[in-house]
């Protein structure tokens, strides 16, 4: 617990906080035993283990239906194409990232003020005003998009479009040219676009940015946390590979934790 110079004071503060909380609990006449929900037998850890955030792994879809998933995989791969600069959105795990985000608190709009009324026409300066959670917006938006594509591309689905066709479709969504009563093209575009970029550049623990493809593309060294040496050598290319919250693929042992 003694991290750096001030550690002993900090641990003291935690101690007094614990006594303080107990005091408060007793004062309020609550059951003090509830405070220690976790029982520790002996040591509070298991040998040779620490507990970083568990990494999101590819696997069965948690939110998307198979059709939705293949549509999203096709789209993220046009937004971030695989090219001579490196992997595209699909290979980098952007669809997995979005799936896991939608299955979690973000998808449920947890903590977001969702009380109405929801006006028809908010001012452009008033920001996000939809009654739908992100999960609902994807479900509805992808259904609308599938119907639109089927009508306009001879009954085909998004995964069956050529790269060029899909680019044209995405451009028209982005430019707000596609709007039907049941579906707002630019809203679903913005949502997928933002989440794809998040997936490509967030820490790989969330299932995207696989092998730190996004960070390697631009030269972000990740979570090294101490760059004092960089300030000693201004205007110099940094050559060490990036590191994430779960380390680096080439030094994580094969079949490691998961």
């Amino acid at each position: 617990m003694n991290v750096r110079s001030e550690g002993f004071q900090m641990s003291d503060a935690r101690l007094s906080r614990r006594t303080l909380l107990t005091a408060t609990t007793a004062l309020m006449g609550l059951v003090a035993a509830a405070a220690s929900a976790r029982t520790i037998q002996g040591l509070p850890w298991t040998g040779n283990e620490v507990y970083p955030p568990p990494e999101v792994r590819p696997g069965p879809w948690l939110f998307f239906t198979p059709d939705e998933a293949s549509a999203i995989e096709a789209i993220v791969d046009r937004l971030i194409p695989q090219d001579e600069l490196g992997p595209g959105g699909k290979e980098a795990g952007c669809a997995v990232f979005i799936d896991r985000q939608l299955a979690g608190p973000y998808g449920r709009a947890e903590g977001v003020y969702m009380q109405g009324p929801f006006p028809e026409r908010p001012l452009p300066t008033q920001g996000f005003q939809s009654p739908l959670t992100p999960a609902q917006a994807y479900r509805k938006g992808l259904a609308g998009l599938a119907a639109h594509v089927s009508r306009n591309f001879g009954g085909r689905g998004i995964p069956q479009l050529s790269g060029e066709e899909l680019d044209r479709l995405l451009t028209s969504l982005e430019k707000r040219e596609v709007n039907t009563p049941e579906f707002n093209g630019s809203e679903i575009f913005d949502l997928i676009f933002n989440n794809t970029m998040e997936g490509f550049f967030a820490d790989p623990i969330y299932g995207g940015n696989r092998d730190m493809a996004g960070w390697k593309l631009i030269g972000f060294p990740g979570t090294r946390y101490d760059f004092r040496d960089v300030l000693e050598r201004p205007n110099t290319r940094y050559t060490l590979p990036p590191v994430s919250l779960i380390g680096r693929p080439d030094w994580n042992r094969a079949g490691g934790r998961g």
Partner: protein
Amino acid sequence: MRRLPRKDAVIVGLGWTGAIMGHELCQAGLQVVALERGPWRDTASDFNIGTAPDELRYGIRHDLFVRTAQDTVTARNRMDQEALPIRRWGSFLPGNGVGGAGVHWNGHTWRFLPSDFNIRSHYLERYGEGIFPENHSIQDWGITYDELEPYYDRFEYLAGISGEAGNVKGQILPGGNPFEGWRSRPYPTPPLKMQHAQNLFQRATTELGFKPFPLPSANMSQAYTNPLGVTLAPCTYCGFCERFGCANYSKSSPQTTVLPVLMRHPGFEARTECEVVRVLKSPDGRTATGVVYVDAQGEEWEQPADLVILAAYQLWNVRLMLYSGIGRPYDPNTNEGVIGKNYAYQANSSVNGYFDNQLFNSWAGAGSLGMTCDEYNGDNFDHTGLNFVGGANINCSTFHARPISARPVPPGTPRWGSAWKKATRDNYLTTTNVGSQGSNMSYRDCYLDLDPTYKDRLGRPLLRMTFDFKANEERMSAYVTDKMVPIMRAMGAKQIVATPKRGPWNVVPYQTTHNTGGAIMGDNPRTSAVNKFQQVWDMPNVFVLGASAFPQNAGYNPTGTVGALAYYAADAITQQYLKNPGQPLVQA
């Protein structure tokens, strides 16, 4: 509702000001309880190095800020519009939990200029009435820089601020800010190391005749032990500062400066996840008798206290006063009343520079790593014929290049596809920025009140914000931004994009969490909510801390002044008020 034993003082909110006041009152021998609506937070457990540098969690999903489902505001630009709730934070990011916004601030720690405090009389004398914008409500603060100087000093020494003094007791020193007010002694720690961008900026501004100086920083340039005996460690330039807790003990925050001492003070108790919902008043309405709060189980408690300190951040101070009927609510139609009056913000601008042959490595940065010039701030320059009041500091700071949010590409670049990918790669390391932090005057129709439609989770009306950037701020920002472009050119940018501040104010893009006003200080109870000691004119046992006291905002970040005013109020309470409690410290 159950009633708890009386305390000498109850503090609402345990952020920067609550922690400072808590410590001063405990030192004076008072029994103090602080009520904090958010969770307990501490460095070792909550800002751990293995979890803290997570851009998605903290930077994008806002894990440290208050959830809008718990507390938000409604917003509109003009009085004839319908305000709508901010459902996702954007323009500003209110704090939550122990440490408040002091946990996840950037740490730019400024003193305002002496003429910022008497801005109305100063400009009037120098330029005449004609310089003031239409519909303004600019006021003097009722306090002078000289009165506040010792308290600025205390906050800076508490927080170990790293910087270079420009004016010690009237002596102008090289390398510091020649325009700053006098200081009684130099900064407690030397400036941070600079990055490549700052080196270019320093050279360019010096050539152009500016006097650049290091941005005063709450990121430590070296280890520092403050007067309370708490030690901070050197900053490692990790690039995860603003919006994040610091895992290094190297950013001053309540956790790294006050709380380690305060939490073990026998006179102090903190209760977390306890949201104060109103202040209770005596039957004659002239004194506060305590507060009501709701705990995590949704249960209501009454906490009686002799002294009530509102330290809940600017927005929530004002909301609590409106809910509790403390002071007369402001009416923009009659210009009468004071609570909610003179809401102001910050008019910032930026100039991006795209370079061919420079590597900025901006991911190696610190919250307040920067160089600054003050030539166009406040009234440091002649405003004759300029048709605006105020100014801005000009700075070049490198505080992060976190890749979800900081991927600048030149205008005209597509937002996606292979061309986007290439431009992103080519510009990520080779782009830098010169910014301005601009003042924001106050206006009759920029104010806070209670929303008629939208309610919070407890069924109470949300705070409503009516605000826009006015012509005065647009002219100021255009003028200062024009001065920034030649700097960027001299730094060698091949392409320059200037973005001066323009209305309408938009709630979506992050601007600053420098919300000011609403419970302003002054020398007259008709036009201000609190006197210079932050004491409510109409209710002498209530003190209101924070930027809610600013009659308008200056061209600097607020917290240096917020901290100084908190110490000033604490001294007034412990040295004057407690000798004769319940009495106003200034006669109306």
